[in-house]
């Protein structure tokens, strides 16, 4: 039962035609490109190896994980190869960019509940798969939830090197110690013990709030302040006046994820059975509701780069 991976993507830079930039991170840039021999549009993440000091082992693990992934809600690497001083990772192109992108362009105050439920269910399916294989994603956030033109949702980026399709938040805090810690679980901040899958569940809860409000809680504060607030304050939730529009089950879902003690958070598998996901709809619904009328990604990216 040999898997027919079908198309073999070429490993020569000359076989790709690079178009516009669609995302950037600390040490990587993402481009839309054409794979000439296969006549297929792809996204290529170009990592500058000179800037990745000595974490080449980390990069190897990230790329290997990405090339062995086999799940509709995760971005798989078609192939990867070195081109001079950079590493090219060829991936499927997700034409609508990230949820962060979409919110900044058209939904600055967040999405409607059925949209949120649909997005989160797809992300959670990805987490169930990753956790089942022993991977922790470490970087769950709206900027890493990518949407394709047909409304398909994929979780991208395994957190080591750069953030695909992500400008704005991370850029501003590039010189601080780890980027913005808004999505980071308390136990990760404290660095006392190792952390596990449950750290992703916290980030998932923060991402739920991000999709509901258009930004993560505390996102207006400097990183050190966020650390203190996350550790000292009660966990954030959906309990403001403006949150009245949300259902009880959504509030419960957020509450279940944002518990400071990681042992008390549900596993991704268990969370997927939460009644909130009864509100989730189809990919087609996403395509019809949130994607309708958005300008092309490259154009949006340029506008966002000026503004954020």
């Amino acid at each position, binding site marked *: *039962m*040999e*898997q027919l*991976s079908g198309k*073999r993507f070429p*490993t*020569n830079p000359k076989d790709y035609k690079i178009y516009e930039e669609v995302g950037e991170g600390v040490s990587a840039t993402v481009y839309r490109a054409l794979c000439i021999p296969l006549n297929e549009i792809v996204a290529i993440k170009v990592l500058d*190896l*000179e800037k990745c*000091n*000595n974490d*080449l*082992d980390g*990069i*190897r693990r990230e*790329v*290997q994980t990405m*090339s*062995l992934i*086999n799940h509709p809600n995760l971005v798989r*690497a078609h*192939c*990867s*190869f*070195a081109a*001079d*001083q950079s*590493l090219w990772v060829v991936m499927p192109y997700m034409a609508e960019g990230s949820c962060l992108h979409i919110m900044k362009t058209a939904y600055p105050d967040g999405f409607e509940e059925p949209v949120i439920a649909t997005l989160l269910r797809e992300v959670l399916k990805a987490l169930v798969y990753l*956790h*089942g*294989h*022993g991977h922790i994603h470490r970087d769950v956030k709206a900027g890493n939830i990518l949407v394709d033109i047909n409304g398909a949702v994929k979780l991208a980026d395994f957190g080591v090197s750069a953030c695909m399709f992500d400008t704005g938040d991370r850029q501003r805090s590039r010189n601080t110690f780890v980027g913005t810690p808004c999505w980071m679980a308390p136990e990760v901040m404290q660095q006392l013990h190792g952390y596990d*899958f449950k750290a992703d569940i916290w980030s998932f809860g923060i991402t739920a709030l991000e999709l509901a409000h258009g930004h993560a809680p505390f996102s207006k504060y400097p990183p050190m302040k966020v650390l203190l607030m996350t550790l000292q304050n009660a966990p954030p939730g959906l309990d403001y006046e403006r949150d009245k529009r949300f259902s009880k089950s959504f509030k419960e879902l957020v509450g279940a994820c944002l518990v400071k003690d990681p042992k008390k958070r549900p*596993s*991704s*598998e268990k969370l997927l059975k939460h009644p909130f996901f009864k509100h989730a709809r189809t990919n087609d619904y996403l395509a019809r509701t949130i994607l309708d009328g958005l300008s092309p990604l490259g154009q949006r990216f340029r506008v966002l780069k000026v503004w954020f």
Partner: protein
Amino acid sequence: MKGLFKSKPKTPTELVRATRELLVYVDLHWNSHEPKRAEKMAELSKLIRELKLILYGSSESEPVAEACAQLTSEFFKENTNTLRLLINCLPKLDLEAKKDATQVVANLQRQQVHSRLIASDYLEANKDLMDTLITGYDHVDLALHYGHMLRECIRHQSIARYVLESEHMKEFFRYIQLDHFDISSDALATFKELLTRHKSTVAEYLLKNYDWFFADFNSKLLQSSSYFTRRQAVKLLGDILLDRSNSATMMKYVTSKDNLMILMNLLRENSRGIKLEAFQVFKLFVANQNKPPEIIGILVTNKDKLLRLFQDFKPDKEDEQFDADKAQVVNEIKALEPKKAAPS
């Protein structure tokens, strides 16, 4: 009352036996048009997943030592050859089952039964399995799975020695330059493990194979046209030569003029990454207290260039050790005098 008739869950021993039976079946019936084949393959994938869950636990439960030990002893039971069957059947499994099987094999290398690593005993008697795993690097669909298994197997010293002494070592110079980054970097990780993990074996190996090994290392890796290969190779060279157990090899390496010239070319590259790693090796040539005249000759001829190069040469982060090494190298080079021509 339905629950009463539910079949009891299989014990770890029974699971391994059932897996083995299916592996034998798949091995024998691969080319026949057996109608039940798809069903059997699905069953096999399920069993391998269950073996993995016993060894690793799940998000709800930790692994149980007793169950792991039972599984391991049955897996390596005499005359059953389960590991060989599994490795040979790997190409026939689907991607998820391949990943699960790889994790199972990796984990078994660390399982102790009556405080013995019985996986090591098995491999000792079946060393040819390493040949299968290594040649996996030439197959895109198998490379990462066999590569991962291989790295776990060479945790056993005798197995690492077998690989080091095999003809495959020569092939690694090619594998680590393959086009696919995920595969070439995996081969490099294995190569590095072979050359750094078991100190005494490595020290002996390098001395015995010095000539061809460093000739290939220099020409194929340090002088490769690929930036990535050069950078990784010079880092690995530093790791090898700076290891105290390899001091005899190091002393030999730093007395060669050709080696020095290669390292000096790496020092002159545009890449800071390569420069900094090259310095870690270059400093050994300078620090050698019994420098042969031809080494002194080259250093003296290039004295000004070298001193200029070191002027604004430092890593991104503050590094006291680096600063001290650099100061010592600079002083040492400044003090070098050309051999005065004898007065006529």
